[in-house]
């Protein structure tokens, strides 16, 4: 049986949820921001996007662009719970649902088509259910693989439904700009343009050998993707994350090194927890600092071994911090891990995981059951509880508490 994949992506997710909750915001340009004074825009409604309001803009920039813009504070729990419930809806159509970010899902419908007349029927039903339950819209792409499903979904935004049959894939891809391929950003787009390639058709017809010489293995991938073939299909579907990081912007600049260290401990633990969730370990770590004048720099280090946990990450990034002469207080700190590989439980000499590893597993279990940050290192108490809006890349953990009992 031919494979059928459905990609579902909520339209302007956080902003739509806020417009659904507050009817008076419907039809108005809305930007969702964090609760601090210095927060940036994390999502904007279509009405705002039309005026060039983009994710990552500061409030000031956005107001200058569009004085009528309405700001609303993001509510993480609301978006996470909605994501969990959308996941539940999808699971009624197929057990094979992959959450790829807080508002994007892949559902493999291959096995469900004996129960439903057509993939488009499933899509229409899902769209209707999401609309009725949450008052938000989503865009759906249906195709023989994830790559084309995602491209089709993006193409139909907002509130679209685009289905591409197996035999139409190549024709569907032909006329699209190369940037519609996920993973081809501005930089890659420019590099391709230098070769005279702007459309998928041109990329497809370009000699692979030249692409390979220019981009390495990516040259082969590009050539496949231009044809609508998903080169990552054969790989581990989850894939390894390239890097895992967290950053925070502070209400007040922090000049005190002890406070910076406390924040770094907090960030290191957040990164370590994500690494554990993804079941990977890393040996590269970076520290990012941003000064009040927005100059930003990142220091990186690659360790000769894979660091087992948050403490090691913390020690590594504080060592990076110590090697820096701070020229001012900082407004943003970031910690990330790169150079990752799958974690294979390394039985220690006396069997089982080592003490620290076991401790953190237990902490993770507590936090899974009782909510994020129920249990955390005491040093992080130095940090006033902050509220930041969740990253769109966030994925609720499988054993999310609502599904426990």
């Amino acid at each position, binding site marked *: 049986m031919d494979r059928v994949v459905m990609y579902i992506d909520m339209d302007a997710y956080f902003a739509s*949820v806020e417009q*659904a*909750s*507050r*009817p*008076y915001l419907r039809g108005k340009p809305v930007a969702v921001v964090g609760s601090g004074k210095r927060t940036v825009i994390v999502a904007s409604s279509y009405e705002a996007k039309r005026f060039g309001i983009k994710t990552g803009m500061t409030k000031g920039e956005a107001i200058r662009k569009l004085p009528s813009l309405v700001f609303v504070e993001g509510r993480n*729990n*609301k978006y996470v*719970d*909605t994501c969990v419930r959308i996941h539940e809806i999808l699971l009624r159509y197929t057990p094979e649902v992959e959450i790829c970010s807080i508002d994007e899902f892949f559902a493999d419908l291959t096995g469900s088509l004996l129960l439903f007349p057509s993939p488009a029927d499933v899509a229409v039903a899902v769209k209707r259910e999401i609309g009725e339950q*949450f*008052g938000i819209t989503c865009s759906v792409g249906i195709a023989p693989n994830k790559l084309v499903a995602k491209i089709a979904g993006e193409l139909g935004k907002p509130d679209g439904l685009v289905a591409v049959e197996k035999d139409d894939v190549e024709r569907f891809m032909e006329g699209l700009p190369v940037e519609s391929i996920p993973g081809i950003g501005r930089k890659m787009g420019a590099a391709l343009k230098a070769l005279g390639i702007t459309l998928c058709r041109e990329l497809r017809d370009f000699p692979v050998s030249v692409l390979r010489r220019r981009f390495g293995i990516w040259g082969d991938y590009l050539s496949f993707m231009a044809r609508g073939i998903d080169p990552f299909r054969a790989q581990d579907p989850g894939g390894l994350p390239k890097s895992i990081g967290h950053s925070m912007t502070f209400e007040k600049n922090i000049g005190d090194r002890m406070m910076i260290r406390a924040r770094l401990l907090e960030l290191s633990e957040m990164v370590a927890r994500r690494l554990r969730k993804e079941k990977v370990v890393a040996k590269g770590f970076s520290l990012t600092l941003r000064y009040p004048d927005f100059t930003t720099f990142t220091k990186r280090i690659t360790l000769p071994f894979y660091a087992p946990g948050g403490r090691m990450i913390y020690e590594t990034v504080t060592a990076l911090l110590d090697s820096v002469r701070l020229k001012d207080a900082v407004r943003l700190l970031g910690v990330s891990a790169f150079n990752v590989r799958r974690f294979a439980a390394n039985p220690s000499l006396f069997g089982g995981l080592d003490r620290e590893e076991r401790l953190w597993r237990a902490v993770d279990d507590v936090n899974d*059951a*009782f*909510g994020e940050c*129920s249990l955390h290192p005491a040093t992080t108490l130095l940090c006033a509880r902050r509220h930041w809006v969740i990253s769109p890349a966030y994925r609720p953990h499988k054993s999310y*508490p*609502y599904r426990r009992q």
Partner: protein
Amino acid sequence: MLTRVGERVVAGVVFRKEGQKMELKWFLWKGRKLEIKKTTYVWRERDGRELIRRFVVTDGKDLYELSYRQEGLMWFLEAVETDG
């Protein structure tokens, strides 16, 4: 305008679908009974062990955020939002 309230209130609720769905009908606040015209959004949160259900409702004029704490069976009016 959003005003935080954080007061305990008495509420009238209809349970549907074997407790899967709660429909808020009215609540008493400041000696007034506010009839709810529509629930605009519902979500769940965790506070430690406790499950909190949050509701955004409207009486046709203003928006109210209420929360229901499963453990003590208590309703709170969290915030009132008036347009403009």
